[in-house]
């Protein structure tokens, strides 16, 4: 059952990911990307990372993608204005990505031999309580630092996007 679910979600994720790339209209791409995110979120649930699933949806589908849509609308890009690359370049791009995939896949066997694998025990590492413990003990510093990151981004965005009054 889980395996079938995995296959299904994977299928959706890959398909809509491809559609992100190949859709001509940016708005469609955004929507396909949202679908991909949902599919990935599904995987999180499969892996019992419920909290992450929630955060994932809120951040990605809720915030990031909305931002994308907002910019597309703002800049009025919801048309097929993009001049396309030549076919040779597209072909080369595809070959390239394919090669990269092959390298990845080729190297990704042997994971089952991991020496420190502690799979199959039933502690719920993905639940809120557990994650909260880890986040606010071991990873407290990165968590705090992340705020600086966001502050930086905020300051930066304000600075850049603000239109100057001449």
């Amino acid at each position: 059952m889980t395996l079938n679910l995995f296959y299904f979600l994977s299928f959706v994720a890959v398909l809509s990911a491809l559609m992100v790339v190949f859709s001509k209209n940016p708005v469609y791409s955004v929507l396909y990307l949202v679908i991909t995110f949902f599919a990935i979120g599904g995987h999180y649930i499969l892996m019992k990372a419920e909290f992450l699933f929630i955060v994932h949806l809120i951040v990605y589908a809720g915030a990031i993608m909305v931002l994308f849509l907002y910019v597309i609308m703002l800049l009025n890009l919801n048309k097929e204005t993009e001049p396309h690359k030549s076919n040779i370049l597209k072909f080369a791009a595809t070959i390239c990505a394919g090669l990269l995939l092959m390298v990845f896949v080729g190297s990704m066997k042997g994971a089952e031999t991991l020496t420190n694998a502690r799979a199959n025990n039933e502690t719920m590492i993905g639940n809120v309580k557990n994650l909260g413990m880890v986040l606010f003990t071991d990873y407290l510093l990165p968590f705090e630092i992340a705020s600086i990151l966001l502050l930086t981004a905020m300051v930066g965005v304000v600075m850049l996007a603000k239109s100057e009054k001449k």
Partner: protein
Amino acid sequence: MNALLIVCGLGFISLLSEIFNLKKGLHVVVVLGLIGAALTFVGDLNVTTRYFSNMLIFDRFSVVFSSLIITVAAAWFCIARSYFVGDTHQTDRTALVAFTVVGGIMMVSFHNMAILFLGIEILSIALYVLAGSNKESFFSNEAAFKYFIMGSFATGFLLMGIALVYGSTGSFDIAVISNHVASNRAALPGFFYVGLFLLLIGISFKISVVPFHFWAPDVYAGSPTLITAFMSTVVKIAAVGAFYKIFAQCFLSVQASVSGTIMVIIILTLLVANITAVYQSNVKRMLAYSSVAQVGYILLGLISDSAMFEGPLFYYLASYAATSLIAFAILERVESTKGTSTLDAFAGLYSKNPFAAFCMSIALLSLAGIPPFAGFFAKYSVLSIAIGANHLEMVVIAIITSLIGVYYYFKPVMAMFTPNASVEVVFNTGEKFIIGLLTLLVILMGLLPDKLISILG
């Protein structure tokens, strides 16, 4: 750690000063604050302190590198006054730079991949913005744009690397990873190496080695000159420091399997960067290629004997930072006076501004590695270590390319000393003072390298 907090604090202060309209003294405060932050390290040189369950470790390396970053940043602030004071976004810019410094410090003192990652990102994101901070300039826009797309693309690979390394070692902690790798070398899965390489590639992008250097010349050339100076000094130190920590501390035991690839990268970097720089007529762009090339020498020392290179690495970066600051400071003045940063802008500088020409020449000579300036000793230590490790063919390449380096470093020199009626470039006293100080430093470092070079390792 205190320094980190102080620098963060400086960021906040500068943001707050916008609100409370305290912009006037801000620049001075920041400089003093940075100096203060550097001073907090004074007692810590021989103490190793761990913070937040090993997230950060301030050992000798981190302390030295952090203070270097902070000091260089302070010096940079001094010469970059014109970038801040009087600008509408003074506070924003100040805060962004301060946060960049925070990211830099994290990059040289991290003990956990999460800190490394966040450090890199804080630094990068702030830099994306700073590169584009001259909003009306098309070039500045393009620089920010290119930097952003390529940077975030590279981040993807970096993260993939971290993920794969995490997967094969089970931890983000440097010590744990290091121990695990050392004790289970035979049992490491194939994707560990993929992860390792992607991790290194991710940082290689930041330190801009060929073939991951493409962004550097364009971004350096497009950004406001002072930001370019910042990128080639503070940012470079942080990135190289991070590379060193990853390469020499975290993955010490698998260096052998990486060094072959890095060797090829070094050769490419030395050749491509140096040769391409020859044709540049824009000094700013030339310095960008030069900055790429310098990394090639650093890496050569690094792969030859990373333990022994620790001290020379610091020396190299310090001397490079000092010389770059001189060069960029003068470049910035020349550019803003003449409206261009091509070689022509430098023509006849000597007749009107002998002091500037003198300092610029020393900076360029130092970059070219001519004794007795600091750059020479830096390069010398690289060659020395490489010969000690019997990388003779690499040394030959390094020597040939550094000769090519002389070729382009001397172009501005020749231009400056060619008689040519030209406009006088105005330097205010502060700038003169700091440039003179840096020049003196470059000479003194070259003459008395011992203390600096043996501060580490």
